[in-house]
């Protein structure tokens, strides 16, 4: 292996390691891997400055497939470990790769705090609503009624919404993508990378072995137009085949409602305009689920100073003199 000259932009494939990929053929993880490699290439990332940190689970095998630095750690703890990497060297570009079980169940506490602290990381949560690597148990994002080896009569638990959780935890950048919709996913990844702070990206990922088609109701080509709301800052919240449908705020219930342009006098004036910096709106968008369209893209982006930036601002530059330290205060000489 030789060091790459610094000015040449790497190709996506130059971010791939020599390891044989061990995800099930057809798994949505392949698409995410491809999107990340393309995003890094587009950004002009350097392999030597990029670190992928993961926990445990199918998604967490990700670092092995990258030609960057990588650390496959302990179940649920990737946000904490990645925080340590950033504390040691804030110049590194650090990505956390996690899943719904890893990031929201066993690692829920770390996810909460890494978002609250706003550590400068990209956190990519592969949500397949199931435990894949341990063979198909229901996860914290599985819908009520999900049948699995540990819920043969249907899960009686109510699912967690990853994006709602991230907003509640104080995340300052919350976005969503779908494994198979590469162009949009790559855009979201690049936006996440550009944000200085904790960037949370939920990717709807199909586990074709244990939860195949669980997102079909909004990812299927046939329904995509009607069930997907692609967010663009400053643009009206329109969707549907001819972009004739939109979201309007019903002031009496303070809830979003679907309206059709031209129906009962509905005009563009009535349609809400996406404002990434509006946390209330982001919360409403995160909560939309079928039959509403599912909100995709950047739900919320309101940057504040990152944890590491604030930390290094406080880091004193005083004298590192050991002798002065040891002789401070009262001493006596014999």
């Amino acid at each position: 292996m030789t060091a790459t000259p610094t000015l040449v932009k790497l190709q996506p494939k130059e971010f791939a390691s020599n390891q044989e990929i061990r995800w099930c053929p057809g798994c949505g993880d392949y698409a995410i891997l491809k999107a990340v490699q393309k995003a890094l290439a587009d950004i002009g990332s350097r392999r030597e400055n990029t670190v992928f940190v993961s926990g445990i689970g199918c998604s967490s095998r990700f670092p092995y497939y990258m030609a960057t630095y990588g650390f496959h750690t302990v179940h649920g703890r990737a946000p904490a470990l990645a925080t340590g990497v950033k504390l040691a060297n804030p110049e590194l570009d650090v990505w956390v790769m996690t899943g719904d079980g890893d990031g929201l169940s066993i690692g829920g506490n770390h996810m909460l705090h890494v978002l609250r602290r706003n550590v400068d990381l990209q956190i990519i949560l592969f949500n397949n609503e199931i435990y894949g690597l341990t063979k198909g148990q229901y996860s914290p994002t599985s819908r009520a009624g999900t049948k699995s080896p540990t819920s043969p009569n249907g899960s009686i638990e109510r699912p967690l919404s990853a994006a709602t959780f991230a907003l509640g935890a104080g995340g300052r950048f919350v976005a969503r993508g779908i494994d198979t919709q590469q162009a949009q996913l790559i855009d979201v990844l690049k936006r996440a990378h550009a944000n200085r702070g904790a960037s949370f990206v939920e990717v709807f990922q199909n586990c074709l072995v244990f939860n195949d088609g669980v997102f079909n109701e909004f990812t299927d080509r046939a329904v995509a137009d009607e069930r997907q709301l692609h967010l663009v800052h400053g643009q009206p919240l329109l969707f549907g085949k001819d972009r004739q449908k939109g979201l309007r705020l019903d002031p009496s219930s303070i809830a979003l409602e679907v309206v059709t342009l031209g129906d009962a006098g509905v005009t563009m004036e009535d349609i809400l305009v996406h404002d990434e910096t509006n946390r209330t709106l982001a919360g409403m968008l995160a909560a939309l689920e079928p039959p509403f369209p599912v909100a995709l893209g950047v739900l919320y982006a309101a940057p504040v100073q990152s944890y590491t930036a604030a930390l290094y601002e406080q880091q004193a530059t005083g004298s590192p003199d050991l002798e002065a330290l040891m002789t401070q205060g009262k001493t006596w000489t014999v």
Partner: protein
Amino acid sequence: MREQAVVRFAGDSGDGMQITGARFAMETALAGSDLATFPDFPAEIRAPVGTTFGVSAFQIHFGSVEVATAGDDLDVLVAMNPAALITNIMDLRRSGTLIVDKGAFTERNLTKAGYATNPLEDGSLSDFIVLPLDIGRLTVAAVEGLGLTSKQTARSRNMWALGLVLWLYDRDRKTTTDWIEKKFATDPAIVAANVAVLNAGHAFGETAELPNFLRPVAIGAAPVAPGTYRTISGTEAVAWGLVAGLKAAGIERMVFAGYPITPASPVLHALVGLRAHGVVTFQAEDEIAAICAAIGASFAGSLGVTSSSGPGVALKTEALGLAIATELPLIVIDAQRAGPSTGLPTKTEQSDLFQAVLGRNGDAPMPVLAASTPSDGFEVAMEAVRLATKYMTPVFLLTDGYLINAAEPWLIPDPAGLPTFPVAFRTDPHGFQPFVRDPATLARPWARPGSPGLEHRIGGLERNADTGDISYDPDNHAQMTEARAAKVAGIAADIPEQAVNQGEDRGELAVVGWGSTFGPIHMAVRRARAEGRRVSHIHLRYIAPFPRNLGDLLKRFDNILVPEMNRGQLVTLLRAEYLLPAERFSQVNGKPFKVSTIFGAIMERTSGNGKGGAA
């Protein structure tokens, strides 16, 4: 002239006994006496006033001779209320001096403490020299006209007691008044009042008609090596040792990640103050995050350090396995406390030894070091940094609640004379494989992210012995398991042979200890040897791996006694390792051993003068 004395200040949690003791210790240290302190406080921050479980105490043993423990029996007990009396009087020696605030011996306080009758009146204290003083009233008199509220006045009662005890031992008050001035700099009235109260206590000794035999006792300076001294707590020693180790290793940054826990929190507090020395501190959301952040920092080329106590260390266990598997430097400081579970958070114990040596899934060896005195933490922390970075391994540094809080005089080392052990980060991509080992140390290279051409992936799945890539190959796993064990075992060749701390390298009895039992074992062995017993003291700093000569050394003794503040953990390891009939000697009452306890055990197990003549 008296050579040594033991004083204990005991009162309510809110009575300021820790401050009083610490000030007395400072004046004593500045007078050149050797000393050891033992702060003993309740788990509750402010337990209900007057209750026995709210009693806070500070003990100090000082002398013009070597002092190695906080002392067995008290010469002077200051009891600020009945609860402090009932919980401490059993440690006062016959004819010892008891100073009580008789104003606090009210009906209500007596009942709360569990006294049916007032001990100041019922004759039950006739073994002691009792000075029943109305310290509360005397304090009020001292601050008259200074405009203090009654609450503020009550709070300075401790200064009166301090003044009197300083008089009793002929100590200066200068640094205490300086300290008061600095501490209350924003409130001149409080400064004036505290100084007045301190002086009033002192003047009382001078002028009051105390019993004739109560005269100031000057305990002089202890004969020590020339140099500049300071008092150092176990916390400071460990924190400074880490910083010294960081410099010795030539590493730019230490990331110290911790989560608040008694009694380890002071270490985190101390390191927050050392930012100028390259220390980044991180208060994590939990114990697991703390160790994981430290591991992440080590991966990124800093020195990762975390600290906790038993229950927190238990939480860190899985991540410790990761550090062992990925072979990254890491230091885990365990300030042990009485367990299991929450146990007795403020009481000391040595019962995490098994946890440190054995407590992980899989075959997961790592070096374990133990500090034996408060100041010893400095050298041990430096050594932990050396081993962690040289061998790419996590290292346990065991200390305990006693060592963390206790203090003793320390000969400040010359920084130029400290060892150095510079770390060589891998920078050359040529032939780089993350798990190819150094043939001498068996350590893998430390390659920091940010280094071009050294990009690599590591993780908890078993790694190929060269490339570090995931490997499910059974033979490779066997090879890696052996390599990890051999690496840690090999450290035995790089640490000093076990010395005999006191006595000959053979004899009738070896008393083997580790950690904070050093002081009591040292004094007990000294006394027994003075009485002609063929007993030696061997104290271990390295528990994993054991020093290479330890087995041979122990085999030269007829009997081996292992005093521990647990049910026999080191003794079990010694028996397993060397098939020796070492004997357990256990104490788990949350307190350090008394010298007399160990002395008695030695006397029972040795045959007296003349038999071997080696004394």
